[in-house]
């Protein structure tokens, strides 16, 4: 790869297992395989959408990249590499200690789902946004003050709000504060974990617009973790679909959204309600039952217990991501086979012109 297309972040065979203890001597009796061998690249200034249902491991991938897992579960078992392209060369940040991560922390920032609990209620907006500046820069107090005000202005809040507390703001405004805080250290990558799903519908679009503007302005890359596929499609350059700790499909946004190949992606897409009363749902692929627990994954393909085209071979090996044309990767050897009705899930629904 030439230098200018070098990925900003390159994840290889990432595994995140949370040990489960039991028995008389509290020895390890199993593991929650939240992420079980995930690989992908993310180019600078691009957006990768990570979709999947609860329990798919999408949030854990984001936290592993931000190196936040050790803080909450010290005995987590991490494998694989997360190569981050920094000004001082490529660094594997997977499982780095707090101290070793420090110089790279400013490059990767997070935006969280719940704007109500992710801001310390006892700190003013000034304090919240200034905190990363205290840690990662040696700006003077006056410079920090200016910077915070500039950031507030940039995310669409009045700079005078700097001395207020989080509870004085609405959900959308708090998410803007969260974005300003993430921007403070001038990161190259922002991991956005369900950033709009807790917001009112009429405010979601504002935040999405803001994120798109900021991406252009600061050449940011996003790892956009969400369950709302239409939002993910709107903002993403590439989309990865996760199921039970594995990526089952990865490709350009259009490839995945308009021409999904993996039976799970198809089912997921066809289940998304479409804001068009005439949209035909007869081609919907109804999945039976629930996602299995990541503690007791089915052998072979994790999806086979709910898959409408599952066969005996599926229980043997874990299918690997294979190129089915133009870099569109699918982890299902039988993806060519028709589903019966509605072989391609209809996506004609969302065509309301605005």
């Amino acid at each position: 790869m030439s230098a200018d297309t070098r990925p900003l972040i390159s994840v290889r065979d990432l595994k995140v297992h949370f040990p489960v203890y039991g028995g008389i001597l509290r020895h390890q009796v199993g593991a929650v395989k939240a992420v079980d061998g995930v690989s992908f690249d993310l180019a600078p200034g691009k957006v990768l959408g990570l979709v999947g249902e609860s329990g798919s491991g999408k949030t854990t991938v984001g936290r592993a990249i931000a190196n936040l897992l050790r803080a909450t579960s010290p005995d987590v078992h991490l494998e694989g590499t997360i190569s981050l392209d920094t000004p001082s060369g490529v660094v594997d940040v997977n499982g780095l200690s707090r101290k070793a991560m420090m110089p790279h922390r400013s490059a990767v920032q997070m935006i969280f789902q719940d704007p109500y609990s992710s801001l310390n209620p006892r700190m003013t907006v000034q304090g919240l946004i200034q905190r990363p500046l205290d840690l990662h820069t040696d700006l003077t107090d006056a410079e920090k003050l200016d910077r915070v005000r500039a950031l507030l202005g940039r995310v669409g809040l009045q700079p005078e709000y700097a001395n207020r507390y989080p509870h004085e703001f609405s959900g959308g405004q708090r998410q803007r504060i969260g974005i300003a805080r993430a921007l403070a250290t001038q990161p190259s990558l922002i991991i956005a974990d369900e950033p709009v799903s807790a917001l009112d519908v009429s405010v979601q679009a504002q935040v999405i617009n803001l994120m798109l503007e900021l991406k252009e302005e600061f050449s940011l890359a996003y790892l956009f973790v969400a369950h709302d596929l239409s939002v993910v499609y709107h903002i993403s350059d590439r989309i990865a679909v996760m199921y039970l700790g594995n990526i089952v499909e990865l490709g350009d946004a259009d490839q995945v959204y308009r021409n999904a190949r993996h039976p799970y992606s198809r089912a997921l897409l066809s289940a998304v309600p479409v804001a068009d009363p005439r949209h035909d749902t007869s081609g919907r692929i109804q999945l039976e039952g629930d996602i299995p627990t990541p503690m007791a994954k089915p052998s072979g393909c994790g999806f086979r217990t709910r898959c409408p085209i599952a066969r005996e071979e599926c229980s043997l090996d874990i299918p690997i991501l294979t190129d089915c044309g133009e870099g569109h990767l699918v982890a299902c050897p039988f993806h060519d086979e028709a589903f019966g009705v509605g072989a391609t899930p209809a996506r004609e629904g969302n065509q309301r012109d605005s």
Partner: protein
Amino acid sequence: MTDVTNKAAAETVLEVRDLHTCFDIEGESAWAVSGVSFDVHADEFLGIVGESGSGKSVTALSIMRLIPDPPGKIARGEIHFGGRDLLSLDYREMHKVRGREIAMIFQEPMTSLNPVFTIGMQVAETLRHHEEISAAEARARAVEVLTQVGIPDAAKRLDDYPHQFSGGMRQRVMIAMALICRPRILIADEPTTALDVTIQAQILDLMKELLASRRGSSVILITHDLAVVAETCQRVIVMYGGKTQEIADIEDLFDDPRHPYTRGLLDSIPTEQNKGKPLHAIPGNVPGILSFPAGCKYCTRCPEVIERCKIDGPPLVEVAPGHHVRCHLVEDQGAEGSP
């Protein structure tokens, strides 16, 4: 279902008239619902759409008379159902309506079931409370209705506790519990918001099937998600700031949204055509419940606002048969009509 004759013939099972519900917040009256009127027809899947503070859930809880008092209070209005005004019933009469004639399910299937009782007990409890029925019979009916809502091996799972079920399965149990007395109306308050999309699709399909199989019953679906409404409902009420802003058949609403707020909501949904481009966002934030403006509740965010909007609130006007809008801009186009 959209032609006019059908609509006129539709039997009305529930009439909400001029409903006002307020909450006492630190000494101030917050009008969560102020003057809401609408009908629910037989065999109808009716959607109520709105954001936080729109009053959609409070409307539903007011119909059930489940507003916590204090701090809440139904201040005014009438709710006609089965020849009675629900708001004038005494508590004992209301207990007979709840669960038996009007049932309700809630957003959080994880916390809406009592964790220390078996699901068999909880499902049968509704029935045993409303009907003279033996414990054994009630259990048999519980198995029957749990099977109907798609709980595999229902007979074996009667003695399981809620935590032994997944979120989707718990919502099915909630539906079973609500339907066991065959109520005329099921109110579903954000029933799928906490669930994954594949499970959401299952639950919405189940509700549609159940409605189709029970003649004369209706569902009121309360949601913030226009796509969910488009998929399930025949008629929609759009609420904002404690008032109904637009009431229309589902296709009319999506084809010809007349209220600027409805248009704003529809325009802000990402579509395939505008991928990567700025969305048509509604400016500003949903005001806090105490800070909605006088006049039109939407006037602080409306791109088409005129002076009049800030002074007096527009009435609900019928702009086409069955299509009602509360906006000064459309007022001249139709005569004032009752919903």
